[in-house]
């Protein structure tokens, strides 16, 4: 099968490895560009959330490249993500595309279908082959997580963040190329060592910023206009609370044994939010509390416009911010979000938290945030 799947951060590395090892041809959607988003906005529902629009753009561009089968995940609600595949299918069908959609849907009424579809993706391979493919894919999920964590931690520290990004991308490419678990491990440890060895700059990192929010906008740089990278170039150490490998671990592999994690999140979110609200609404509140307790300087909450669960979190976060005296900035993104406006807001936010920190300790002078220069190291401009 000629398989494609939508972009979401670095998820393509493990998924490509998995499908290729199972004997499928993988056609990756081209990197998200303005065209991707224009296609999604043109054909997608007007007030749908940004991730769906990017998905639709991805599908169209991948189908143009010759993909025949779209693999997508499903959900059981109440978040809209549960219907992404169905709505996209209706739209692409009306547009006249000839394709097949494999929806891996955990909903109860879809269980038999799920088994059938997993079998098709396994495409008659022996159990050993399938397990080997899964093992390598899992290693790549972990590799991606580790590299992302390292780069977020160090980009704001080093004197040449552009170089750090380059090392990071090279390591990712090496993970993508590695054909065995061992290769992947070597690629990661080399990458991490190299990033850690980069010389630091005085006064850096200037601030420590946490990112919480809706998973797609957190993970996919083209949806957040390279939020993390921008923060790194401005000299901020970034802590993110969501990683794709961890997400897979908690939701796919451990989903049945997930009670403890859920209870912990609930405890953290109490008394601000006392019920699961779908998506990652509860996580956003819980993680903000957690980061605040750990003494982070500020938190950025990112969500797509009209995202239902995150709007609940957005309504609640001002109280967390007040109680813990921690600056929280909400960034709502959609197809109209401009890079310049985003950078201005990030700069202002960083200035604010650096001053706040400085005012606490009187000897420390005001540290200046290095000005972000347009285009530095950002190689995936999506909205301009």
């Amino acid at each position, binding site marked *: 099968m000629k398989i494609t799947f939508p972009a979401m951060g670095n998820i393509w590395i493990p998924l490509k490895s998995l499908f290729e090892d199972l004997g499928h041809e993988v056609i990756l959607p081209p990197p998200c560009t303005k065209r991707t988003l224009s296609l999604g906005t043109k054909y997608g529902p007007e007030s749908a959330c940004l991730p769906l629009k990017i998905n639709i753009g991805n599908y169209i561009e991948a189908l143009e490249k010759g993909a025949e089968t779209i693999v997508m995940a499903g959900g059981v609600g109440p978040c809209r993500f549960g219907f992404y595949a169905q709505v996209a299918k209706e739209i692409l069908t009306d547009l006249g595309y000839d394709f097949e959609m494999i929806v891996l849907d955990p909903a109860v009424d879809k269980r038999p279908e799920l088994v059938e579809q997993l079998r098709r993706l396994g495409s008659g391979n022996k159990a050993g082959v399938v397990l080997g493919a899964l093992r390598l894919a899992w290693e790549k999920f972990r590799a991606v997580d580790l590299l992302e964590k390292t780069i977020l931690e160090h980009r704001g520290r080093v004197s040449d963040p552009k170089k750090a990004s380059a090392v990071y991308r090279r390591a990712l490419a090496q993970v993508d190329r590695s054909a065995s678990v061992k290769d992947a491990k070597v690629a990661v440890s080399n990458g991490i060592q190299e990033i850690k060895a980069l010389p630091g700059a005085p006064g850096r990192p200037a601030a420590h910023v946490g990112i919480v929010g809706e998973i797609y906008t957190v993970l996919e740089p083209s949806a957040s206009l390279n939020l993390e990278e921008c923060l790194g170039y401005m000299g901020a150490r970034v802590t993110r609370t969501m990683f794709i490998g961890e997400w897979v671990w908690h939701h796919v592999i451990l989903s049945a044994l997930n009670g403890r994690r859920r209870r912990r999140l609930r405890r953290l979110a109490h008394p601000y939010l006392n019920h699961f609200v779908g998506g990652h609404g509860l996580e956003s509140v819980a993680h903000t509390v957690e980061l605040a307790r750990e003494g982070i300087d500020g938190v950025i909450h990112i969500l797509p416009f009209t995202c239902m669960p995150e709007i*609940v979190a957005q309504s609640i976060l001002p109280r967390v911010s007040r109680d813990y005296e921690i600056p929280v900035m909400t960034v709502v993104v959609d197809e109209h979000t401009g890079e310049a406006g985003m950078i201005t807001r990030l700069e202002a936010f960083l200035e604010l938290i650096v001053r706040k920190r400085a005012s606490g300790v009187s000897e420390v002078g005001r540290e200046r945030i290095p000005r972000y220069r347009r285009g530095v190291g950002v190689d995936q401009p999506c909205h301009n």
Partner: protein
Amino acid sequence: MTGRLGTRIGIPRALGYYDFYPMWHGFFTELGAELVVSAPSSKEIVNEGIKAAVDGTCLPVKAFYGHVISLCSAKLDFIFMPRLVSVAEREFICPKFMGIPDTLSNIEGLPKVISPVININRGPLAFARAVMDTGRVLGASPIAILRAYNKGTRMLSVYRKYLLEGTPSEQAIQLTVSGGGTLNRARHSAEITVGLLGHSYLIHDPYVSMGIHRKLTSVGIRVITPDMLPEEVILRKANEWPKKMFWTSGRKMLGSVLKFLEDKVDGIIYVAAFGCGTDSFTGELVQRYANRLKTPCLLLNIDEHTGEAGLVTRLEAFTDMLVWGSKR
């Protein structure tokens, strides 16, 4: 502090009100409480809500905020704001409903809140416990609570029957609460039938929806709403969709539109709240299905900036088109 009798409980006239008020009325009055329903939506009420809510929230939720704020000055003992998670198996209402008691808890002067978690997904026992906990707040005995609950369900089914006959929601609530009465429905020999879709809290709130329902009937159009379709018909039609629609209102929209299209209505009007997550998808599906069958479809996105004049123009253009179409 008032005793059990005459406890004043406030109910915001928004969101769940249009689907469940008769139930709450039966339940609380049976337990001796006095219900105070906020005034019908108005500019003042909605504006207060807009000030209090986050920008990206949909208009109906903003209106809900406004209703709650307006109740804060009503000298209440409690305000009833259930956390409506799920009212049917394996379905949800909407994330914003699930977070409502939390997002509203910092409103100034808010009376004590009764917010039981209504989650059918958790099974009948959890639901029974939620009902019991609610009754116990008023100091009632389990038997009294059970009796009150039965009264509530009876009133709800009476209300549903009125809706099924096509009685407008406010009027149906009046009739249910006052214990019946005859209704003189205007029987018009309408040539044109329009299926009016939209959340009940949208199309039944004349201020928020700018009276679309009445505007249509006043020009002699027969309007059918999802409330006028029996539950089992909606369910059967919605199940034709490849996946279970996990939003209760979404299922109602999907089932209704498929039924309307099967019955060959002349046109479909979908009233959506701007920023509503469920509408963005069900609205899309409704438009696509109507287009495939060449049935005229009008999607009206409503928010606090929607002007009545513009809406009337669009409605008139649409209805004129239907009239011309039927004469051809």
